[in-house]
């Protein structure tokens, strides 16, 4: 049943958000720490479970697959409701800070990617 897939996905998200909020409380920060990440790992674990009881039927998988396919349209909707005017109208300092931060972060990707691969070669 499609609803099983949707329910499984929703269950993973709720548990993940719960864990993320709880972790935020424990650390004393006013933010959700890794809630989506925990939910993703949970979904991965549950859907990769090597047990006959938890094997998902193709129709159940559609309940997850639909939302996965809706990802790009949802991101387009997200882009359409960003505060672009706010970002552009607060003066140069905010824009310069944002631009340089992004440029520096982009430049670090190849450096770190090499470090990661170096580790794998050594092991």
């Amino acid at each position, binding site marked *: 049943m499609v609803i099983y897939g949707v329910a499984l996905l929703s269950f993973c*998200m709720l548990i993940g958000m719960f864990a993320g909020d709880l972790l935020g409380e424990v650390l004393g920060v006013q933010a959700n720490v890794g809630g989506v990440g925990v939910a993703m790992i949970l979904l991965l674990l549950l859907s990769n479970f090597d047990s006959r009881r938890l094997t998902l039927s193709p129709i159940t998988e559609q309940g997850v697959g639909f939302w996965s396919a809706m990802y790009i349209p949802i991101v387009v909707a997200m882009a359409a*409701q960003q505060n672009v005017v706010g970002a552009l109208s607060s003066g140069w300092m905010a824009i310069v800070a944002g631009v340089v931060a992004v440029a520096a972060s982009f430049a670090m990707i190849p450096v770190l990617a090499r470090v990661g691969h170096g580790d794998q070669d050594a092991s």
Partner: protein
Amino acid sequence: MLLDVLGRVMSANGLITAFVFVGALVWVSYLISSTLTRGRIHGSAIAIALGLVLAWYGGLSTGGSRGIADLPLLAGVGTMGGAMLRDFAIVATAFGADLRTLKKAGLVGAMSIVIGVLLSFVVGAVVAVLFGYTDPVAVTTIGAGAATYIVGPVTGTALGASSDIIALSVAAGLTKSVLVMVGTPLVAPRIGLNTPHAALIYGGLMGTTSGVAGGLAATDPTLVPYGAMTATFYTGVGCLLAPSVLYLGVRVFL
């Protein structure tokens, strides 16, 4: 009368209106992609860029902060692209991701988050100093804003920064998130962003969930779960480090 009824139906069924609106937007974008650019620029990249342009137009015409979703007829776009459905769809992309890649990149992924927060913070703080800010609280808040637009206000509130400084930190974070969305597909080939491993590092370094979500969608949707996985920890780590260790660090220098 016809238009009145149509408007009433559209706002009463906001989310459904948003589906039609976004569907049409995506369709136009893929048409532009295949005809005007001959497929060289990905349709989703164009769709996201058009979305941002519409958000800019919406902000200008309504004076609100929620882009096109501030137009009453398109309020449903706010629901469709809001945090709840966004996170729901991101979690769904994990379905079918490779567990082994995630395990292998665990350490470098964690490293990239901390380095990403530090890097953006230092850059933001240095820019603040260059623009004449000397108050450690202001410099820390703006540095935190350069991490993400959530870390900025959380840090500013914790340290007691004034509201105009907090607004600046949000603007720095917004600039970052918009730029990551637009810039990622353009620089992806040059920085080697084409493997799940690189996407994990990218997510950790960039950290802005919306930026990473949009940037990877426009580059290669199969990389989304890997980037999103690390990005989701970034804001938490930023909120943890900025008002504490990083603030103390700033006070050493100022």
